[in-house]
């Protein structure tokens, strides 16, 4: 008999991200949500995923619970295969050893270009200033498959990003290669709080692949700042499972620092 599960938008994005990883592959982990995605994924789905952090931790096995503010501390460099530095970390990705990368975004455009630098005004005098690239530009440039995690708010999906911090497919097919970026790389999926997008082989434009169980695809895309392509068949995304939620809430982030967010629910 059907029941309703309740979760936050963040929990849903984290669960989706964790399900996208492949076991025995490498994963370049960005700051914040991707850290939790890596932990959940490794615990539940991809025990042999190799995490890599830009500050030189190769293959750590993070200690639980996740300690907020930890970036380079013992908790998320624990039991690494190797401890190096930033230039070596980006050597691994630049020479092709990083299969997946994951990044958050303020804005994303139809080609998966990311803005994480500013909103409104000009670069010199923005209305709102944010962190900027960090190592995001390298991750999006080097990794074979970049996964973008972004809250599903229409204003975040724009025809053109105000500042191109980290490269998606730039202006379309062939543009990355023309710019000199490594061939065969680019955004792979966009994980949102309502849906999952991919990119069309031919046009490199964002394509709706699936929506959270119970949501209407047209509702999901209607307030986006651009019209994404629609897959022939729009799949249904299972809401966070009991096991995913238990791990997130009890073992990974009991302080609810990273998994907090807007309440959502779905009937299963």
């Amino acid at each position, binding site marked *: 008999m059907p029941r309703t599960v309740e979760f936050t938008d963040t929990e849903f994005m984290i669960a989706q991200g964790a399900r996208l990883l492949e076991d025995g592959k490498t994963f370049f982990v960005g700051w914040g949500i991707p850290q939790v995605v890596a932990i959940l994924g490794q615990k539940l789905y991809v025990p042999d995923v190799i995490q890599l952090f830009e500050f030189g931790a190769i293959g750590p096995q993070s200690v639980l619970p996740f300690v907020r*503010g930890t970036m380079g501390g013992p908790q998320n460099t624990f039991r690494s295969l190797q401890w190096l530095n930033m230039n070596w970390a980006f050597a691994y990705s630049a020479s092709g050893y990083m299969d997946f990368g994951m990044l958050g975004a303020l804005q994303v455009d139809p080609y998966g270009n990311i803005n994480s630098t500013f909103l409104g005004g000009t670069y010199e005098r923005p209305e709102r*200033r944010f962190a900027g690239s960090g190592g995001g530009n390298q991750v999006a440039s080097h990794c074979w498959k970049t996964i973008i995690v972004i809250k599903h708010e229409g204003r975040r999906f724009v025809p053109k990003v105000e500042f191109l911090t980290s490269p998606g497919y730039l202006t379309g097919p062939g543009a990355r290669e*023309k710019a000199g970026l490594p061939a065969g790389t680019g955004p792979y999926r966009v994980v949102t709080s309502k849906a999952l997008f991919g990119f069309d082989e031919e046009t490199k434009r964002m394509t709706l692949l699936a929506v959270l169980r119970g949501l209407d695809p047209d509702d999901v895309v209607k307030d986006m700042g651009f019209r994404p392509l629609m897959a022939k068949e729009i799949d249904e995304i299972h809401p966070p499972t009991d096991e995913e939620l238990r791990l997130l809430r009890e073992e990974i982030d009991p302080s609810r620092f990273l998994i907090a967010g807007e309440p959502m629910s779905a009937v299963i």
Partner: protein
Amino acid sequence: MTKIRKEGEIEYRFEPPDDFRAFVRDRKSRKAEPKLCSAKEAVSAFVADGDYLVYDFSSLTRGPQSLIREVIRQRKKDLWVGAEFTLHESALLTGAGCATRIDVGFLGYGSYIGQAVCEGRVRVYEWTNGGLALRMLAGARGVPFLPTRDLLGSDNMGVSAAKVIADPYTGLPVAVVPALNPDVAFIHVHQADVFGDARIFGTNLFALEAAMASHRVILSAEEIVDPEEFRKDPMRTTIPFFLVDAVVHAPFGAYPGAMPARYEIDLAHVDRLNGIRSEDQMQKYLHETVYSVADHEEFLDQQVGARRMRELRARATIIEGYR
């Protein structure tokens, strides 16, 4: 001091390799001399107004926070900060009127620094973390530039002095960044001897690159050890003494951040920092934690306290590999 150059509207620090080499030849000593001194002495001797400053690692992990506070205490002016993980340093240095330009990196969080950028109180350039690390490597390798296959196609190219050139072998476009030879580098380490040999346990951003590429290097160390220690285990030496100008003994020097395997991050204090929004809050924080105390020791005594330090040490339970 490294020169300021312009590419269009963009200012960037750059020193031709020959100029840096001449400084290393004439102004850096290869003699093993005791360099132990106070933070006050080190910062007044080796940090000048207008200097370009870099540090390793971050606000939350092994950052040279006691040295940053000393810079603020001495009210240095017009600093240009090369900052990778700058979560608080840039905000504090800007709020204190010390920094006017920042090369990032990852520009912190908390709204104060963002607001300062919006108001034009500090100028920011986008080199990205990988770009800054590569600039440092170029500075250390004595070459004027290094190539990389990122930055390409992004707007960071327009707000940094990175360029695109044709690879001499394939003709394909590749990005290049100019060498960076900072005026001064702050590096907080686990162990140092009085001459400046130093060990960092765990990962680092670009500790050796920065020490080699910088005109002046100030180490702050949790622990001062016997020089013989380093020669017994040369694979563990992060920085050899002849790159270093000053050694400051600074237990809890990374506070409120964490020192891996020594003490954990003080989240309550970090929250207080992240909560700074207004100018009043910033000045109040600076007064309490910097201006009103004579030095790091007094700060620890009055603002942190022995009990808190004991707690933070007790929380650092993961020591495996940090030796």
